[in-house]
């Protein structure tokens, strides 16, 4: 048994299969960040720090004639979203019920996916994570209120990256509202705006709940590094006669290696 303590939960194999499957289905579309950055791992729950390859000065060494520095690492941080499942619902699923109420799990999956997106794109100062948008030295440009102005803004961002020598293809994370606008818009001549933007980027456009506006970033690789310890997993907390208390958990760090490989576009 590992730290997730799953064998202690009053959940059958079929119940765990249902919960894992539901969580995966809900998480996958919302995990925008890891679709656009370099994912390393998972390296396991014991993995605690990312090597930064840098050193920090030390005020003193054990010997006056010996120099010393300290290695710098970025500690992994943990995210955890709690949820509950009704014991009765689980038993009904074991009997063959197909309409099991997993709303609490769905909400937790969305919360933790949004938290991951926010950490990667906007940053998480308490975890010493600088987000892609915050790290970019490029001045954030407005996307504009009207979706028809998006191609100009996105093309401008791509040109800015090209001018800086950052090669493509490029990808774009779009906030919920901005994605909706893009998806529902057809330009003159009937061309879908989504297709037009994909052609400009030569890469993917990703629905990114938690992002406000958009972030255009290079997909050439090596610029944005996500270090996964424990990948998203469901663990057991406690239970009583009516309710099982569970959680979705992950540990990770994130490092921007090339700050100028992204351009933020504000809402």
């Amino acid at each position, binding site marked *: 048994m*590992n730290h997730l303590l799953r064998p202690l939960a009053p959940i059958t194999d079929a119940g765990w299969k249902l919960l*894992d499957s539901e*969580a*995966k289905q809900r*998480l*996958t579309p919302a995990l925008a960040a*890891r*679709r656009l950055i370099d994912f390393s791992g998972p390296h396991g729950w014991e993995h605690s720090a990312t090597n930064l390859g840098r050193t920090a000065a030390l005020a003193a060494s054990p010997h006056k004639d010996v120099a010393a520095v300290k290695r710098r690492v970025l500690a992994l941080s943990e995210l955890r979203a709690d949820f509950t499942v009704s014991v009765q619902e689980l038993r009904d699923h074991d009997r063959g019920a197909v309409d099991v109420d997993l709303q609490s799990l769905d909400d937790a999956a969305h919360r933790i996916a949004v938290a991951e997106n926010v950490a990667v794109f906007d940053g998480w100062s308490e975890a010493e994570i600088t987000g892609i948008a915050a790290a970019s030295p490029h001045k954030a440009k407005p996307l504009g209120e009207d979706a028809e102005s998006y191609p100009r803004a996105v093309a401008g961002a791509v040109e800015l990256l090209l001018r800086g020598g950052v090669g493509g293809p490029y990808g774009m994370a779009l906030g919920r509202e901005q994605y909706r606008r893009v998806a529902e818009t057809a330009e003159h001549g009937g061309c879908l705006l989504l297709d037009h933007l994909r052609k400009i980027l030569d890469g993917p456009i990703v629905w990114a709940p938690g992002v406000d506006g958009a972030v255009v970033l290079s997909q050439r690789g090596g610029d944005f590094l996500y270090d*996964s310890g424990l990948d998203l997993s469901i663990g057991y907390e406690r239970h009583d006669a009516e309710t099982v208390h569970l959680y979705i958990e992950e540990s990770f760090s994130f490092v921007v290696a090339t700050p100028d490989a992204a351009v933020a576009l504000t809402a």
Partner: protein
Amino acid sequence: MGFDQYHEPPQELPAETRTFARLCASLTEEAEAIGWYEQRLAVETDTEALAIMRDAQGEEFKHFSMDLEFLLRRTPLWREIAQGILFQPGDIVEHGEESEAEATEGSEHEEGHSAGDSSDSLGIGDDAGSVR
């Protein structure tokens, strides 16, 4: 072209098992190619041809390694056993026995998965849509 990588009727196999089988077949082909190049290199005397074949064999090393990493990511128990064997100095057979014993211990109640961290993971990784 045949569909020899399938041992069971393909239409009865889930999509992920078909993908797994394709990568297993690819892994086999890359290993065969590495062996063939090794033999060709052993008998060739033309230095230019040797350089080309060394380069080609390097490509097969890369392809084999990528196939293997894919398969290990999708198979936590295999990954855990491999971690105890690959890149470890010392007796390979000994490592193999120890690694298998450690990885399979206590896994009977976890549907064949190991008790390691990855066994209970949702297995999303960069499958959320690795687009590169």
